[in-house]
């Protein structure tokens, strides 16, 4: 009851200075709207750019690096021989070369089963990488075909974001289908439905039907990389079902990646690399952009705060009589302070709420501005992040600024000595 009374007095006083109050509220409105629009836009752009790396990269990649054996068999024999006291012996065999199916992950199917049962793992996508030649007329063009599980690849690594033509389902359902890199396809002058001839390094030839085009925005990549299903590539290489060269793992929690990569490397006896090691520097840009948007918004809000401070000071000066009589008739200093802080908060809340709406509208507008981005062919307008965190922070900012801006004039009002005012008349 008491608070409602004070609130009623606040809003009545506000009506006395309606125009200036609206101007002050508009200041808050603009700063909040700008903050929301700016943050949404900045972060949309940030996550788009981060996504270029983050979305395409598995959190952990298990593979088998081709390397010579650490210890040549002959050296073992020599150690044994030396231990027998025959120090003079020497051999000329430098090393045994890597051989056979080294590129494949051993026991890949077993490892995949184990990974699927790990609760920390969001999902896994197997990959078979193959170096191939495309026969174009009389010449041959180098290429690489990646055998993937299209559905998992799309779920975990956003494969469809980079498809300019064709769909994930078409790739999955077409036997011997292939998605060509855009640059490679242009070079070969093939269209959807055409058949291309692929030769593996071992010399096996296969005919593959083009079902889509892929564009990552990186020319070197688009001129070489192609995608087909795991089984198509296994057939192409004439390898069995368990021939998998990479196991790509996505985790629920990205930060666990380095530790888990070490764990898997030890547990499965494979090489494992985590995303942080693979891409160390990309977070810096996002942090800088975030700081800029916060600084701009805080500056706007401080300006709005000064506006409110001014108006309240003016209002208090004008309303000294009212303050004096309120105090004479039994309102305490605290009551008077509450009245003026309420006044400031009403301006802040009204301005802030309109600001929320305006900010949201601005976001919608930005979201509709055309934007061509080579690296992400599916993106056609500017990206906007509609994270509810920004409106929340915005309205909190507005409340805090208006409270602080209202506090000092309100304290001054609460200290008005009614005797001085009344005797002065």
């Amino acid at each position: 009851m008491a608070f409602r009374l004070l609130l009623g007095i606040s809003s009545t006083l506000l009506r006395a200075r309606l125009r200036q109050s609206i101007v002050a509220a508009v200041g808050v409105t603009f700063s909040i709207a700008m903050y929301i629009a700016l943050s949404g836009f900045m972060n949309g752009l940030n996550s788009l750019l981060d996504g270029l790396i983050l979305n395409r990269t598995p959190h952990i990649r298990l593979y088998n690096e081709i390397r010579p054996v650490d210890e040549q068999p002959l050296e073992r024999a020599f150690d044994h021989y030396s231990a027998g006291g025959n120090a003079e012996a020497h051999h000329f065999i430098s090393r045994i070369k890597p051989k056979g199916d080294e590129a494949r992950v051993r026991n890949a199917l077993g490892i995949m089963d184990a990974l699927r049962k790990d609760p920390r793992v969001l999902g896994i996508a197997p990959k078979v990488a193959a170096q191939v030649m495309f026969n174009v007329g009389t010449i041959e063009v180098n290429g690489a075909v990646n055998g993937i599980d299209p559905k998992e690849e799309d779920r975990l690594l956003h494969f469809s974001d980079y498809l300019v033509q064709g769909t994930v389902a078409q790739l999955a359902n077409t036997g011997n289908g292939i998605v060509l890199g855009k640059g490679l396809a242009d070079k070969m002058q093939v269209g959807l439905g055409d058949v291309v001839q692929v030769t593996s390094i071992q010399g096996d030839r296969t005919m593959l039907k083009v079902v889509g085009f892929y564009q990552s925005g990186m020319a070197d990549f688009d001129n070489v990389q192609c995608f087909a299903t795991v089984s198509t590539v296994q057939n192409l290489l004439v390898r069995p079902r368990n021939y998998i060269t990479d196991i790509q793992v996505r985790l629920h929690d990205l930060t666990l990646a380095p530790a888990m990569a070490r764990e898997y490397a030890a547990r499965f006896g494979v090489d494992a690399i985590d995303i942080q090691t693979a891409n160390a520097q990309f977070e810096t840009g996002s942090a800088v952009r975030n700081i800029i948007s916060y600084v701009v918004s805080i500056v706007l809000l401080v300006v709005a705060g000064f506006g409110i401070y001014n108006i309240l000071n003016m209002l208090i000066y004008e309303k000294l009589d009212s303050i004096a009589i309120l105090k004479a008739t039994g309102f305490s200093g605290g009551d008077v302070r509450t009245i003026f802080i309420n006044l400031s908060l009403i301006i802040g809340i009204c301005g802030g709420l309109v600001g929320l709406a305006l900010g949201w509208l601005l976001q919608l507008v930005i979201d509709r501005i055309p934007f061509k981005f080579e690296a992400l062919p599916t993106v056609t307008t500017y990206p906007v992040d509609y994270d509810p965190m920004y409106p929340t922070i915005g309205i909190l900012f507005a409340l805090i600024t208006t409270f602080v801006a209202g506090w000092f004039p309100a304290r001054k009002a609460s200290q008005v000595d009614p005797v001085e005012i009344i005797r002065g008349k």
Partner: protein
Amino acid sequence: MSNGDPVIETRKVSKYFHDPVTAQVLKEVDLVVQRGEYASIVGKSGCGKSTLMYILSTMDTDYEGELFLDGERITGLSNDRLSRIRNEKIGFVFQFHYLISEFSVLDNIILPGLKLGRFSRAELEERAMGHLRTMGIDHQARKMANQISGGEKQRVAIARALINDPLILMCDEPTGNLDSRNSAIVEDIFKRISSEHHRSLLVVTHDDELASRTDRIITMDDGRIVAS
């Protein structure tokens, strides 16, 4: 006067002004106002009568001596406590009306009542209308405070002072801004408040006619009460 029932009482109240030079404006004033008494304080300009009234009003706390209201020692109480006491026990009428122009006449009157919270809004409005009716301005109740005449404003201010049934009504030059006709109306109202409701009134005034209609005239000179 010791056989009465004092509403307000001062014991050796002294007051100094320090600006521009230290000067004693009240010199050990002892004053008792009884319940139901209608008293006026008169004296030359600068004799300290207004200063005394503001000390009695509890708004001025910078004095020496003791102040009692309704048997309770007021001196040294916290500002919040004093606000509460003013709200409940003292009504004020000043030379200027001090109505809040953004509120209606009725809202201006019931504001102190809403603060006290003893009566509901509806009851307060009814009481306010009663006061306005006895002063002959009930038809103006819904108007904004700045839309009525000066004499009416002063009557509204009196109604506001009465809304919480105060023990004592303190008035500082209540007719100072009014023409003779409106002054006469205000004088009549005061007389009626005193005689019909047996409320205490303490009026500081220059107006000899107003003073002459009070039950007791307290004359001050140079910070002292010289006759009462």
